[in-house]
């Protein structure tokens, strides 16, 4: 316990301390009462109070939360409390666990909290969940939360990530030693607004804008998305909002009284309305759904039909890069696919030599 922490405790005892199991009060006779769940002493002089408070985790814990973090009823405080499961464990249990590190997973982020038992100061290590076992020295270390914006910008293949909650967060980096402010800031910059929306949900105050609400308010080039058929919205959710694609848990439905059949996923933080990527893709799907189906006649062997199905599966599940060059048993193998193209496409790229016969629908984007 630091001198300033004891000074603060003495000062606060005048009006009474009651926090996380610590109770300190000034009694009518001028002495101090000091209580924790496993310790009680009354009628203490200031010197005796110091002796009881020293090395007591309940005191440094009080100081950390009430004098440093403060901000009752704020998302960031709630998030930090969650990171050490403060609602479920006593201070003593938490300090024991925090010595070894308490781990929170937040989407693809892994946040490990530790405590200095002498001061109650918490430190946080933030990294990708897949890097849990790596030594800090084996990762690229950062200390400025603002770096998170650049780290989060590209996936491990160097491709731009427009959706921060997508499941392709890069690996190989770490913010190894953040204070509580910077820890929340880093999470916020990695996964913007997820803490705020989770917090609202915890309080039963999450506002959800369902598909119909969100599309109804669109204007300009997105005004058309309102016309996407109800049935297609199921496919949108299945395509874009699946746990394999996004770490948010979809809470929006078609409308308040019309739930989608597609599973919303198991993410820790909620998705409260269709995101801008879904809106933009929805515009394309709206235009595509305006087309009338027509019949084409191709000749394909059963294996060729299965191969087309296999190619679609591989692209949809992002498995193309995993298929080995010489693995011609895979439908989406490049040589297999090139063979299929050589055999079935005419010089104009028409499958089976059958022209597509486009209507005069809008193909621009």
């Amino acid at each position, binding site marked *: 316990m630091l001198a300033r922490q004891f000074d603060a405790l003495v000062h606060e005892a005048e009006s009474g301390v009651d926090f996380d199991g610590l109770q300190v009060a000034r009694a009518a006779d001028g002495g101090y009462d000091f209580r924790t769940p496993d310790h009680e002493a009354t009628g203490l002089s200031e010197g005796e109070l110091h002796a009881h408070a020293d090395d007591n985790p309940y005191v440094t814990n009080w100081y950390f939360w009430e004098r440093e973090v403060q901000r009752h009823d704020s998302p960031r405080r709630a998030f930090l409390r969650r990171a050490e499961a403060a609602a479920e464990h006593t201070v003593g249990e938490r300090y024991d666990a925090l010595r070894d590190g308490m781990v929170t997973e937040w989407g693809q982020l892994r946040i490990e909290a530790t405590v200095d038992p002498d001061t109650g100061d918490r430190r946080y290590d933030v990294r990708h969940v897949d890097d849990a076992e790596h030594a800090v020295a084996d990762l690229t270390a950062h200390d400025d939360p603002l770096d998170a914006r650049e780290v989060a910008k590209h996936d491990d293949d160097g491709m731009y990530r427009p959706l921060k909650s997508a499941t392709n967060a890069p690996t190989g980096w770490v913010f190894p030693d953040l204070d509580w402010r910077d820890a929340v800031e880093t999470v*916020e910059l990695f996964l913007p607004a997820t803490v705020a929306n989770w917090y609202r949900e915890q309080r039963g105050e999450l506002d959800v804008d369902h598909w119909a609400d969100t599309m109804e308010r669109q204007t300009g080039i997105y005004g058309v998305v309102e016309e996407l058929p109800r049935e297609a919205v199921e496919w949108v959710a299945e395509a874009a909002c699946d746990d394999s694609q996004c770490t948010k848990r979809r809470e929006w439905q078609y409308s308040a009284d019309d739930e989608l059949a597609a599973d919303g996923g198991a993410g820790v933080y909620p998705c409260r309305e269709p995101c801008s990527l879904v809106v*933009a893709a929805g515009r394309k799907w709206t235009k595509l759904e305006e087309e009338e189906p027509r019949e084409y006649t191709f000749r394909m062997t059963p294996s060729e039909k299965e191969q087309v199905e296999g190619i679609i599966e591989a692209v949809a599940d992002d498995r193309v890069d995993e298929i080995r060059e010489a693995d011609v048993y895979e439908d989406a193998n490049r040589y297999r696919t090139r063979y299929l193209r050589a055999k079935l496409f005419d010089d104009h790229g028409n499958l089976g030599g059958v022209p597509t016969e486009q209507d005069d629908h809008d193909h621009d984007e």
Partner: protein
Amino acid sequence: MSQALVIVAHGSHLNPGSSAPTYDHADTIRAAGAFDEVRTGYWKEEPSLREVLRTVEADEVYVVPMFISEGYFTEQVIPRELRLDGWDVADWDSDGLSADVATYTAADTGQTVHYCGPVGTHSSMTDVLIRRAESVTEDPAVGEGFGFAVVGHGTERNENSAKAIEYHAERVRETGRFDEVQALYMDEEPEVDDVTDFFESEDVVVVPLFISDGFHTQEDIPEDMGLTDDYRTGYDVPAEVDGHRIWYAGAVGTEALMADVVLERAADAGADVSSAIETVRETTRVAPGADD
């Protein structure tokens, strides 16, 4: 009472560089320390305009749009997405160039939101255009013997788009610093393709009034002006075109001094940022000629 600055921008699903200038200017302003919080929000990136206010703890929020002109985004999309209930474009009392601030309570968070006009139409943007000329020529005294072209997108859909370009071209002209000043456009007359037709000066600085470098400023305009046949092969600065030296500056929004325009917008709206403006002007000062 704490005050926050929120810079709102378009962002992109495809171009990772789109948000970079907004981040940079936010960082400059954050370092100047005038606001308790400085945040950014985007139409196409995260946090979305819809949710950016709930990432801000302050009760008093100054929102500055990183947009060039008053129009669809500043008048419809941003107020709607920020849930500025009661928003009425008439509250800006603008002729397409003069929006400054309108104050609302955000329906989402209850914060007081001072919704500012876009950076592109602020008078101090003229200084940034000129600074861009200094940066690209690495000459703090650039002007004499030089022509200056302000380039805009130009579109029939938004008449205010051209107003901002003409406004700043006229202000640059009024400084008397450059021998010739011209407003040019990508999609309307006079076109940037014919840039050399509009200048007698051998040296011409060309500054696109765009927020970030992307498709138009990095690909279209350099190719249209004949700086290069293929943007992928790059171009020189200056580049020789039809007997002129074209000093192509890229998007004005990437100039560090842009942070000052954001602060000026907030200051006009009542934010207490005067010392920060000094700091930002100092920290974004280029020292052309000092380069080796």
